[in-house]
């Protein structure tokens, strides 16, 4: 690995407009990638990890200009490729090759492996057929296939073998950068290991820079020197691989690591479970984008919450911002939260839940204890719930909004160096910001 930077990405954005009507008026944007920075050196593998919809694959396609980025610079050996014209782009693409998850889709079934792998050579002016065959044979052996495979067809190869052929084809033009998007995700574990070792070997042999995109942290750990963790279009942490695994600094990284089931039954039940789904990238949450799910979301000044309960109260608050609660569910599924005595029989013989029963049911639905440990917080919550069940949703909602704000929704944390020595974007690491910008509690 060298100190020289081969690829540098600055402020990369890719937004997709959401349009409406015949005039295709833009009514919103999907912020698939929303300002990411990173760099890769020759001989280095940078991993990008995240869940579906975090933008990791879009980073790959937009930095290679397979789709045009919305904003940002992509410097390759110091030159900004976003300004390249067609001819320059073509030359650049030879130096930066991409490998995809499904190798089958990237081969023409009617072309022999030799033709497929040798095709880029022809395009790049090597017209001597025998010379091409020699180069291809040599490469096939280097990726663990046999030179005799040159005249076979794609359907004669297994998934793992096809991925080897794909590697050979990427290598045939002597690239400096390989961008691999989930290259082993479609393979069985025992085959994954083979392909990953091969990629490691090839990278060392050819001194390649590699950008390795995967949802699988285990796979990332095998091949990457450094890892960038993405959430909703942003990088939330970027760190040397082993350090990231042993000492994650961002709550999302911790959750991601903690969600991987470990092949050791003695560790069962130790996983961290995040609540809810990933929000839509067309309308990302304000402040820290992770605040709607973060288990460590910062509580407001002046209240002593148990962290777990604070998370649940936040869930309730976020739900109430969307509109009145679904009391039918509470009546149907949580009618016994307050115990007997809160169910009354109405005139028509139906049993109904009284207000206290409803409030207890709401708490149960949101996993909030029937009494919070902090008296003042309990008082606020109780008043809000009373309003909610008395058909006064607005006051309930506003009360929670006023009292139970989190600094995490007001300030967007920036990727900053933490005391651990690498960068993470979380206000828990940015004490100064927190002190300066947290609203005074009055």
């Amino acid at each position, binding site marked *: 690995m060298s100190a020289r930077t081969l690829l540098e990405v600055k402020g990369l954005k890719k937004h997709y407009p959401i349009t409406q009507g015949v005039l295709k008026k833009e009514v919103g944007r999907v912020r698939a990638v929303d300002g990411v920075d990173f760099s890769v050196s020759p001989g280095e593998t940078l991993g990008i990890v995240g869940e579906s919809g975090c933008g990791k694959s879009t980073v790959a396609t937009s930095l290679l200009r397979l789709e045009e980025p919305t904003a940002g610079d992509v410097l390759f050996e110091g030159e900004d490729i976003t300004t390249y014209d067609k001819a320059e782009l073509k030359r650049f693409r030879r130096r930066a090759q991409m490998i995809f998850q499904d190798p089958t889709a990237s081969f023409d079934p009617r072309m022999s492996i030799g033709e497929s792998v040798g095709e880029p050579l022809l395009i790049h002016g090597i017209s001597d057929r025998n010379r091409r065959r020699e180069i291809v044979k040599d490469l096939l052996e280097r990726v663990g296939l046999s030179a005799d495979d040159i005249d076979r067809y794609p359907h004669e190869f297994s998934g793992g073998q096809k991925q080897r052929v794909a590697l050979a084809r990427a290598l045939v033009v002597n690239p400096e950068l390989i961008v691999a998007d989930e290259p082993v995700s479609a393979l*069985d574990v*025992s085959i994954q290991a083979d392909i990953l070792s091969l990629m490691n070997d090839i990278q060392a042999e050819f001194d390649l820079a590699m950008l390795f995109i995967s949802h*699988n942290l285990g796979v990332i750990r095998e091949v990457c020197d450094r890892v960038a963790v993405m959430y909703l279009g942003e990088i939330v942490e970027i760190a040397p691989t082993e350090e990231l695994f042993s000492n994650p600094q961002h709550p999302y990284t911790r959750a991601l690591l903690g969600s991987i089931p470990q092949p050791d039954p003695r560790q069962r039940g130790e996983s961290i479970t995040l609540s809810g789904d990933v929000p839509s990238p067309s309308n990302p949450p304000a402040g820290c984008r992770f605040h709607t799910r973060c288990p460590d979301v910062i509580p407001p000044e002046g209240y002593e919450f148990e962290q777990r309960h604070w998370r649940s109260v936040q869930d309730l608050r976020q739900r109430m911002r969307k509109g009145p609660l679904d009391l039918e569910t509470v009546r149907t599924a949580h009618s016994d939260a307050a115990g007997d005595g809160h169910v009354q029989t109405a005139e028509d013989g139906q049993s109904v839940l009284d207000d206290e029963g409803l409030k207890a049911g709401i708490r149960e639905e949101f996993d909030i204890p029937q009494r919070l440990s902090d008296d003042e917080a309990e008082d606020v919550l109780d008043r809000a719930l009373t309003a909610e069940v008395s058909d006064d949703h607005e006051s309930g909602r506003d009360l929670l909004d006023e009292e139970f704000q989190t600094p995490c929704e007001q300030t967007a944390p920036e990727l900053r160096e933490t005391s651990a020595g690498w960068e993470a974007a979380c206000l828990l690491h940015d004490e100064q910001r927190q002190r300066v910008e947290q609203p005074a509690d009055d």
Partner: protein
Amino acid sequence: MSDPLISVKNLHTQFHTDDGTVRAVDGIDVDVSRGETVCIVGESGSGKTVTSESITKILQMPPGDIPIGEVQFRDVESVRELADQFPKRVFDVHEDDAPGTAGTDVPPEEDRPGDEKHFVIVEERSGDRISRGYIDMVRAPDNALRKIRGGDIAHIFQNPQSALNPVYTVGWQIVEAVQLHSDDDDEAARERAIDLLDRVGIPDAAARFDDYPHEFSGGMKQRVIIAMALASNPDVLIADEPTTALDVTIQAQILDLLAEIQEDLGMAILFITHDLGVVAEIADRVVVMYAGKVMESGEVFDLFESPAHPYTRALLECLPGRGGDMVSIGGSLPSVTNPPDGCRFAPRCPHAVDDCFTGDQPPMYSVEGADQEVSCVFYGDGYDESVVQTEFAAAQNRTARTDGGRTTGRRAGTDTDESVRSDGGDR
């Protein structure tokens, strides 16, 4: 000990194709008891999915076919019900103690009671009531199976999309499932459906009752499917890779949910997965399959603590991200139409000796001091099992191959052997 709820015995499931008969499942035994989670783990082509689909015969037949084997479903309620419904197809073991009049294609060692038409097997009666017996699912006709599928035995799959009808609301589909198995009127069925949706963690269940499947995320759709499966209060849930298509944080939520409802409802779960991490998280018992055979089975703590079979060890050692070096198993899956003699794993096993290449797959030997059984000659008489209880990678290095392949140690030559991996097994 009470009988297992489901006993798969000597199951052979085959597919007749132009290239020959694919022996996807080739003689396996699996038991699932009430309230227990059994995981079948294996790679593609292992036969794990076909096993799960053979139990209620949801596989396409033809080309699928179960020429040999039995799947016993021991739910007395169902036995009584089906005995009433199909009186001519009941076989009373006690009335007729003669050995089973086995059909021509049933091997003699497989002493199945009755003949092909009998599928309700009664073993004991107390007075007039049946007190012990089972349904033989392999022989059961379609109309009997339909009652059991989606009733006593529910299925969930990797892709929830395929199990939901896009043109009906989610609520309507669950109400339908509820009413299929109860006499609930519309109002009561609606309440039950809302209760189920809430139970599986769909927020605002009542408000979402009238939403269509496409309005739910992947994880939420899988929850809806679980709710539908629960609508019939099943005794057994068969889950085929239900979390494989989901992100890890959502997978963790669904695994938590399954564990929770199992505890609440006491269901048995048969869980099919390729992921040993998931196995360690939820299994009580584990069955490791390879090329249509069971390599090893046992209690989850014992099996992970000391994997007995070389293949199990290899699977654990090749998991990416453990820290340490990754192992490559080398070689490739044996042919599914013409499997080799002896142990199916022998061509890739660094410990293989002559006995491994002849005869049948070794029998299931019990492992001393553990609740585990293993199909490997080294656990038989005259062998020292400690030989195979070492690291797979180390063993590979010791027995550097001389078979012309480049399979030496972890820089292995890989999956490049002559046979193309056939996906005839798992789909």
